[in-house]
């Protein structure tokens, strides 16, 4: 087994990987950029090395620097987390060359899966259904317009090197295509260093259903069931769950779906943990979307129902061990659901809201799992992804899991910055959501129709809030103004409640 593992990541996922390493008796090496010296993942590691300046390209994305640290620290393996270098084939190749084990699939499999177009081809060959669209990146606007009118609008623009919604755009008509293409390319270039974008027909009201697989280096592949991640905003998942309510209602589909996912792995020489993503229609037709050659953000819900620690299995697989489970050993229990807590302001169209966390009360108790990179006093940096924590709940049924998650969201208090907690409080109470009637357009529609909640039943709560505010105001008027006052001083001007896509204009 590895004696020491370097975690080439930051935030909650670095913390999460460190936890499993520690439980396995493996020493951990953290890396940090200049703005992350005080980050939680550094405080939890046995060793910590400065990777470089704040800019990710000069720190967390800098292959030479990461490998240099691995060498200095004598790390036997590198866990890349998700994002950053996790699906970078060059990095996997460089690790192999430096004789540091990359905990993930080989460079070749990453390359094939990383190119969404090559992945589509491989899947088509393996007999997995795919969405109609271009076989490779479009050369320019003219080709894009031609393809789009060929498969028919709406179409989806996607970064060839992409993932996580970066460089993705839904385009409803030809007029919107030029600007969308430009933006998608710019985002793709910035996120992946590759501006290639391809086109797919947009499936109407699709659900996002994905299958977790584990593949060892001896040819064994199993799946750990599906997850549904239909609640997305700007193509970013925000709520994920397992089992999928749609699949759960149509259990015959599960067999076909999961078998397709298990077929996908050998089709590209895949090893380690991976996720095969599908779009699924209301009548349970599904199409290959992409394969994520890494640990997913939403892996905790699978861990909660299967009882399997995916990071532990990743490490064991990377160490050359055979899978410890056969397919029939996998016996999911109950229902798990996760929300991603972002440092974003839902009342200003989810604008990023970095800043200092001045107060923190974290939810806990039966069935609650929190994966967080935050602590009281921590300054959420401006430079990276705004996700600061993942809150998950497990219960016997979906209804109980929702109730539990709702209650935990209510308990969760993050002071000093704006977060998406209030948004989840509302969505988790939504009748359609609770009934499982969801698709990837759910949140956009919900935001547009978002109810104004200043209702009678809240009157006593408003009175309590007023009384607390008056008490606080008496105190505050005796104190000088604080740093975080500035950060929040624009509320007043934003109008109340009705959140537009980008309503940062004020009168």
């Amino acid at each position, binding site marked *: 087994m590895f004696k020491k593992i370097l975690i080439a990541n930051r935030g909650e996922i670095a913390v999460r990987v460190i936890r499993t390493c520690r439980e396995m008796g493996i020493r951990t090496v953290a890396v940090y950029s200049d703005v992350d010296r005080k980050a939680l993942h550094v405080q939890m590691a046995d060793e910590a090395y400065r990777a470089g300046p704040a800019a990710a390209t000069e720190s967390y994305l800098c292959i030479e620097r990461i490998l240099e640290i691995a060498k200095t620290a004598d790390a036997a393996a590198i866990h890349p987390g998700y994002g950053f270098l996790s699906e970078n084939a060059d990095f996997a190749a460089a690790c192999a060359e430096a004789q540091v084990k990359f905990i993930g699939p080989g460079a070749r499999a990453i390359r094939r899966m990383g190119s969404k177009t090559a992945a589509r081809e491989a899947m088509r060959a393996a007999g997995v259904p795919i969405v109609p669209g271009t076989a490779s990146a479009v050369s320019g606007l003219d080709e894009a317009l031609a393809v789009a009118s060929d498969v028919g609008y709406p179409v989806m623009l996607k970064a060839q090197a992409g993932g996580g919604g970066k460089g993705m755009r839904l385009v409803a008509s030809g007029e919107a295509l030029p600007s969308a293409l430009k*933006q998608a390319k710019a985002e793709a270039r*910035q996120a992946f260093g590759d501006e290639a974008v391809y086109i797919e027909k947009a499936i109407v009201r699709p659900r996002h259903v994905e299958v977790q697989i584990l593949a060892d280096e001896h040819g064994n592949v199993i799946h750990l069931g599906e997850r549904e991640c239909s609640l997305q905003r*700007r193509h970013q998942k925000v709520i994920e769950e397992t089992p999928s309510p749609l699949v759960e209602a149509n259990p015959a589909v599960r067999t076909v779906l999961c078998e397709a996912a298990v077929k996908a792995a050998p089709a590209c020489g895949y090893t380690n943990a991976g996720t095969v993503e599908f779009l699924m229609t209301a009548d349970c037709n599904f199409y290959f979307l992409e394969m994520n050659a890494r640990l997913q953000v939403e892996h905790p819900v699978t861990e909660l129902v299967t009882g399997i620690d995916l990071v532990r299995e990743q490490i064991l697989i990377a160490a050359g061990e055979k899978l410890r489970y056969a397919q029939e050993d996998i016996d999911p229990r109950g229902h798990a659901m996760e929300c991603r807590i972002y*440092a974003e*302001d839902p009342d*200003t*169209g989810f*604008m*990023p809201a*970095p800043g200092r966390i*001045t*107060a923190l*009360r974290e939810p806990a108790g039966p069935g609650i799992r929190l994966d967080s990179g935050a602590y009281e006093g921590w300054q959420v940096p*401006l*430079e*990276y*992804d*705004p996700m600061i924590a993942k809150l998950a709940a497990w219960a016997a049924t979906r209804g109980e899991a929702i109730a539990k998650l709702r209650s935990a969201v209510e308990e969760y*208090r993050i*002071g*000093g910055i704006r977060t998406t907690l*209030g948004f989840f*409080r509302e969505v988790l*109470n939504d009748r359609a959501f609770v009934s499982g009637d969801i698709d990837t357009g759910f949140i956009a529609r919900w935001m547009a129709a978002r109810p104004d*909640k*200043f209702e009678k039943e*809240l009157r*006593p*709560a*408003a*009175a*309590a*809030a*007023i*009384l*607390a*505010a*008056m*008490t*606080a*105001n008496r*105190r*505050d008027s005796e104190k000088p103004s604080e740093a975080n*006052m*500035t*950060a*929040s*001083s*624009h*509320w*007043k*001007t934003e109008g*109340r409640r009705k959140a537009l*896509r*980008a*309503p*940062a*204009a*004020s*009168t």
Partner: protein
Amino acid sequence: MKTTVIVGGEQQQVEIDANGRFQIDGLGGNAEIVAVGEGMYSVIFKGAQYAVHLERGGNGVYRAEARGGSFEIEIVDPRRLVRREAGLGVAGSQTITAPMPGKVVEIKVARGDSVRVGDGVIVVEAMKMQNELKAAKEGTVAAVNVSAGDSVAPGSALVVID
């Protein structure tokens, strides 16, 4: 003494004495208010308990969360109130402000340009997301206060539309 409080855009008169006896918009009783942490309060009245989370916005403005509701509360300083009222009716121009700290990536308008509601005006990047700020009124660009590449603080005025 009565204090004027603006909640959800509506002015209300609040009375509260040293013993916690209060009167707000028809609701009244004895309230017990204790601080239980930075911005955290527990308020009990008529047996009901409200855990209130307050965020201070400056100038007597607070954002409060209680019982799943979120409220914006302004406690009006009588002196300020005079200024507020004197200032009414002056407006009509629009200032697009930075909603978060970030970097200006692109400015899509120049001084003197005409814009319509929904037109993209400026793109600000933070936390790896490019956010296009849009015009919320029709008019003419009166001022552009920043350049591409500038770092901006939250609330800083970027573009003014007349």
